């Protein structure tokens, strides 16, 4: 018993009759129960938040967070969120995708037209447009693009054509 107290390093502790192995086992058990308690608290929080969201205090209690309850709905919501809501976001995207830093601050008329069209598109059409443009982008990030002044207009016209093509997807064609 004394040996055990010395090992514990606490002369004022309640005397224990457990030997070293048993003490270690007990300590492990206590740790496990503490972590279980922590996890159950988190689950309670998730359940409460879920109930609040539902605004239904009589709903069947659930210990699962929303993501686990209905993962496809959340994914679909994420997928269907619009990629570009502001024209500046479109300028930013074009500027980065085509290594044209100046179009972000001084967008040409055709790009302005494209950005306006894009922000009016629905999420599905925007996603389709994003993947269509992506098909024309190389794997590595471009730092310089060969683009003569005439070709700049050609690029933006092509982007406008693509936006028109995908607009049919959500019936928002102008």
């Amino acid at each position, binding site marked *: 018993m004394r040996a055990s107290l010395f090992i514990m390093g606490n002369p004022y502790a309640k005397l224990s009759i457990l030997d070293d192995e048993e003490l270690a086992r007990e300590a492990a058990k206590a740790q496990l129960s503490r972590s279980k308690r922590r996890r159950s608290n988190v689950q309670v929080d998730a359940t409460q938040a879920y109930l609040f969201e539902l605004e239904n205090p009589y709903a069947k209690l659930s210990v699962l967070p929303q993501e686990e309850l209905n993962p496809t709905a959340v994914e679909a919501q994420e997928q269907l969120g619009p990629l570009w809501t502001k024209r500046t976001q479109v300028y930013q995207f074009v500027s980065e995708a085509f290594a044209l830093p100046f179009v972000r601050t001084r967008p040409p008329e055709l790009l302005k037209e494209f950005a306006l069209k894009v922000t009016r598109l629905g999420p599905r059409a925007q996603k389709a447009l994003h993947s269509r443009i992506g098909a024309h982008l190389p794997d590595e990030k*471009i730092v310089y693009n060969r683009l003569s002044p005439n070709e700049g207009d050609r690029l933006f016209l092509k982007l406008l054509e693509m936006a028109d093509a995908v607009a049919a997807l959500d019936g928002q064609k102008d």
Partner: protein
Amino acid sequence: MPSQHWMAKRTKNPWPSRYRSAVRVAERLVATTGNSFPVDLNRIAARRAVRRIEFAPLLTDGGLAVRNDGFIIYVRCELGTGAELTARFANDGTGSTLPETIRRRARFTIAHEIAHTFGYDLRRLPPAALFDLKAPTAIRSLEVICNRIAGTLLLPEWWLTRQLSDGDWLDPRRLSSLAKTALVSRETLTRQLQRINPETHPEGIIACVEKQVSVPVIRAISTHYRFKELFLDARAGASLQKLIMHPNLRAFGGDQSAVEKTICLVGAQRRRFQFECEPNAANRDLSFFLTVRALD
């Protein structure tokens, strides 16, 4: 005062000196990389830490990507042809095996992207940019310079001077044949002629013309210094009519490749000139050479 202002502006603008130094590097690079024509762009690219030249269905003519181990050059091609064209160019860096329709454009694009690597310090990897480009004017200047350096890589002045040392270089067919040998467009050859030593330039005017929707337009023009005061309105982008309008010339739907015309100059002086174009000048959407020489 205006000259001081001009001098101050000149010292502030770093692009002319960057351009001159890049041209020197480009000339030396071609001279030490095989020295054969058409220029093998794969060998030049390898010297500039370009790890791969890849054809891809881009929306622009080409692009340059920087990686930890060097650069990747991308060139535009039709959807689904990328892998084959990439393999073809890897086997033959002159681009001779590429389809005729894209051969010259692809070569110029690759040369242009190689020119962009001149703006990087290659002594360490990843390559570090030598200057920061934020202003649109700086980017435009860089693009113009890269076009010129691309021309130098494809047609260095020392090679062009050697070619022009003998014979009649105001013969449009001969010029066309030279462009074919170097695998460059007529426009590139004309633009490079603008930059050679004035004494070497053929004594006349050389223009690259393209028929756009029936109207022939000058794409590039190179003038011998003795002709500088003549045909001042005949510039790149202007209609060919600023240089010549003759219904018998093939370029205007006629059946003659060469016509003579007397032109009144300042001081009531009259001079006779010969205007000659290539036989293909009647074709639409094709470029052709048109030359002007004094007959007296």
